[in-house]
């Protein structure tokens, strides 16, 4: 986790805009910049579709492509067990979907794996991979005489609010996914009045940035790039974009 106040201090030091007319960033705007930068960074590590080549949908950097990518996103990896009926695994939305222990499951962001707890003859469980296939292949697979989905080799398709598993008799699954990063928040209290009023960091009510400390520089330049657009500050924006390409 990155301390949100440390991040803010570093952000304003690089921006060097504090107090200048027309370039003041309010705490609300700062929080928005921070979370948008966090989203950009998360996508860049998981895989950015803008980097796809025609006929080759592989980004320059993608989740699990290297150990670095695994390490960078490991804090988002979530495991939840679900008892399901009719083969439907609910996709966690972070508010209503509960797992088999009745706990709210964190909101789903990206796929990692889905397993069926397959019962062996000695009544122990083994985890069998559930392969996700495209919706237009489901009919062919379900009616296949060679590759019919079984409890040992189930398949699934992703739908709007749930994952449909075949065969529908699958009852107990483990869903591994990347959750949405927590929303960062620099909370504050106001001290002083009138022109002397200043926001002061409120550690107790703040939420730190849900990313490894190592990537604070990258998050900062991403936030600065957005801020540069807001402030019509080309130098700041071009510096940030350059740093994003070179890596910081």
């Amino acid at each position, binding site marked *: 986790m990155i301390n949100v106040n440390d991040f803010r201090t570093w952000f304003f030091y690089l921006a060097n805009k504090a107090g200048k007319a027309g370039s003041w960033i309010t705490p609300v705007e700062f929080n928005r910049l921070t979370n948008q930068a966090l989203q950009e960074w998360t996508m860049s590590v998981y895989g950015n579709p803008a980097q796809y080549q025609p006929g080759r949908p592989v980004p320059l950097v993608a989740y699990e492509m290297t150990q670095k990518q695994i390490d960078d996103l490991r804090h988002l990896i979530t495991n939840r067990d679900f008892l399901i009926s009719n083969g439907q695994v609910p996709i966690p939305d972070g508010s209503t979907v509960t797992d088999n222990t009745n706990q709210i499951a964190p909101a789903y962001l990206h796929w990692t794996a889905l397993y069926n707890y397959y019962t062996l003859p000695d009544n122990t469980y083994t985890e069998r991979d559930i392969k996700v296939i495209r919706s237009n292949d489901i009919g062919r697979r379900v009616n*296949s005489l*060679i*590759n*019919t989905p079984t409890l040992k*080799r189930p398949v699934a398709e992703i739908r709007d609010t749930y994952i449909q598993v075949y065969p529908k008799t699958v009852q107990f699954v483990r869903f591994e996914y990347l959750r949405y990063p927590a929303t960062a928040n620099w909370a504050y209290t106001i001290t002083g009045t009138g022109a002397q009023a200043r926001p002061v960091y409120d550690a107790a009510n703040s939420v730190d940035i849900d990313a490894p400390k190592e990537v604070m520089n990258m998050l900062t330049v991403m936030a600065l790039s957005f801020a540069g657009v807001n402030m019509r500050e080309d130098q700041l924006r071009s510096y940030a974009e350059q740093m994003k390409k070179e890596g910081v």
Partner: protein
Amino acid sequence: MALTSKERMAEQVLNELNKRNLDSNIEYGDVFVRLSQELGRVIFNRFVATKADEIGEVDGSLYYTFTGEGNGITVQQDPVMGYWYFNLPASTTAMFYGMGIKSVAALKSPLKPYKPVVNGFNDLFNGLDAQGLEGTIGYYTEKDRVIFVNVTAINSPVSVIVTMLAPLDGIAEDEIINIPSDIQGEVVDRVIQYFAPMPPKDLVNDRVDQP
């Protein structure tokens, strides 16, 4: 190599294809089917090759007996044709002299197998002394059935066991079976070759054929 199973051989194939990044659309079921087909082919080729040396043997470990989970395979009477038969539990391997089915016997008398006869036996021997097989029971294959000769409601076996040559598609994927390690290797190699796609001949869209 230790005893194996269809699943184990299929995993070996998929692991190898995975290393070559070729397994995207290949499922276990696809590999099972191909393993069964290639095993039959390898056995046939080996048999033919050794036949030239006057050996012509099939490794005994390649035979498998279906017992109908201990209850035997049920014998039925065809309501139209009247003959007695049972359904084959697996595909046969095409071999000379009907070697694909090694033996058929009553569940209670496994050491007294019936006599294999060729399809067309009845046509050839109808009305002749040989038709009776000296009071014994014969059988031949037709479509997915093994049909009995000299069987009536009086002497029909209730259930039978059948020993077949390499009936891989009738064996559960995780059942431990014995396939000689050299044959395993040959079969796995052939299946990998089957699934490995041919490299593109011409990658450059310049209307010029590349070597």
